[in-house]
């Protein structure tokens, strides 16, 4: 535990993981409330072809163009989902699943093709699948913090618009707000949140980080503001715990440990949260039956 402050590598990774947790927690709250949990999954899987194409086009193994490619591809993925829902009879979840698998398939195909190139291994494209947290540099953490900061500022600015979008989008339109634009803005912020986390947790597992903290937070409160803050905290906790755990043993991968921590938080929240938790519900119904039988006795 003390190592968190003294060990440079652990500190860097922990900070990166915490930032990732906070940002995905904040934005994940909204996707969970809008019942778009699969959106994070679709975006992160859709990012893969973007990463590979960015490498093929620029020949660079620097993270910036790759991450940019990831963002653009993820964003295009959401546009495709929108187009499919609008123009076909396929519903939102079907469209998300479709985009997820098609984009990911294209990404894998490109990945296999790319490995024949001599400079491919240098780019570490494979590492985007499950993340390579230990290779985070200070610069990376700074970039994550800046991007994450922008996203959070945007959420604070457009707080009431996002609330309106999530609760009663049609009413919002009737008031004159361009809900379509707000939707695109929110989705773009989700893409940013995912792109921040890709190098730490990887494409395959990132979706968990966009869903878990928000779902866990919902269990503990009925107020949106509290939920979003709680979600950010849970995300940060998962990040820190994951980083710490992976530092305790040799060859324990950071990305999966972060996701596991987040999952444990969700599980505990589902079970033990007051009022909404399953354990409490069970206790309450026991108490109720006990009272009832007692009342029935003469």
């Amino acid at each position: 535990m003390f190592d968190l402050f003294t060990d440079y590598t652990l500190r860097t990774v922990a900070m990166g993981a915490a930032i990732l947790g906070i940002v995905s927690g904040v934005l994940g709250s909204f996707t969970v409330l809008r019942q778009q949990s699969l959106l994070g999954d679709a975006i992160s899987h859709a990012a893969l072809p973007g990463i590979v194409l960015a490498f093929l086009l620029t020949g660079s193994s620097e993270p910036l163009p790759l991450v940019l490619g990831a963002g653009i591809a993820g964003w295009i993925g959401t546009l495709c989902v929108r187009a499919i829902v609008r123009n076909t009879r396929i519903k939102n979840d079907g469209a998300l699943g479709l985009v997820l698998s098609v984009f990911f398939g294209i990404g894998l195909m490109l990945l296999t093709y790319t490995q024949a190139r001599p400079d491919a291994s240098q780019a570490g494209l494979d590492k985007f699948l499950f993340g390579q947290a230990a290779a985070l540099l200070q610069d990376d953490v700074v970039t994550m913090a800046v991007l994450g900061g922008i996203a959070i500022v945007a959420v604070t600015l457009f707080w009431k618009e996002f609330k309106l979008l999530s609760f009663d989008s049609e009413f919002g339109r009737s008031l004159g707000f361009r809900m379509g634009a707000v939707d695109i803005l929110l989705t773009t912020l989700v893409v940013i949140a995912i792109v921040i986390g890709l190098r730490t947790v990887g494409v395959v597992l990132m979706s968990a980080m966009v869903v878990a903290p928000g779902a866990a937070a919902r269990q503990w409160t009925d107020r949106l503001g509290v939920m979003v803050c709680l979600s950010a905290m849970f995300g940060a906790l998962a990040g820190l715990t994951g980083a710490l755990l992976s530092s305790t043993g040799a060859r324990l991968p950071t990305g999966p440990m972060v996701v596991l921590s987040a999952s444990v938080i969700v599980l505990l929240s589902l079970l033990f949260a007051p009022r909404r938790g399953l354990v409490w519900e069970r206790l309450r119904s026991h108490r109720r039956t006990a009272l009832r039988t007692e009342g029935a006795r003469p």
Partner: protein
Amino acid sequence: MARAPARREAMEKTSAVEVMDLTVAYSDKPVLWDVDLSVPQGVLMAVVGPNGAGKTTLIKAMLDLVPISAGRVLIAGRPYDEQRRKVAYVPQRGSVDWDFPTTALDVVMMGRYGALGWIKRPGAREKQASMEALEKVGMAAFAHRQISQLSGGQQQRVFLARSLVQDADVYLMDEPFQGVDATTERAIVTLLQELRASGSTVIVVHHDLQTVAEYFDWVTLLNVRRIASGPTAEVFTEPNLRAAYGGRMAWLQTSEQEPVAD
């Protein structure tokens, strides 16, 4: 433009809502066909018709929420875009997820978002106006209650309060009486009549033919086309109802006061 007295006169002559040649079609299937409607100011009007008649679509078309294939809508003589502030919308209760983490007061304050515009947060003034609206619908005690803990009738009242804070001239409501208890229904009717008395125009999509004559002074019968529209006493007649509902009516009571659908 014109001088004040003349303008007032002109306004009185202008309909609250004017619908002209309105057609709304989804992939070749018409939902509304060539509808003409002129709703005078200060009436409490019911829109009735069988399922699929296009009642909700009519409301949404007035609010520019669905794409219009032909025709147009004017609010107090001007296009809807220019008159947004004057129109309040109460959607169907089932159109939102009531498990959303928010309070009754918070929902009502959403009605003020339009006046606030982008980014600005609601403040004390908005909170006050919202509390007053909640009082008017008898929900002041529930202001800080989580909306999932409210009954159907209470939720409906919250929605109404939300429209009240908008300070509108025209109110468009989609089935506000659906699934509410008798007390709430009476309370809502009283409220609507108060709105009418103060000069607002209230248009309500209504499902219960039994209560049309009792609550509403104007009625529009709709079945993709406009069947009839006008004062209830004149328009809410057997022949018109038969024309609107076609073979859907099992039997009709011949009494003038209470025609009944199946």
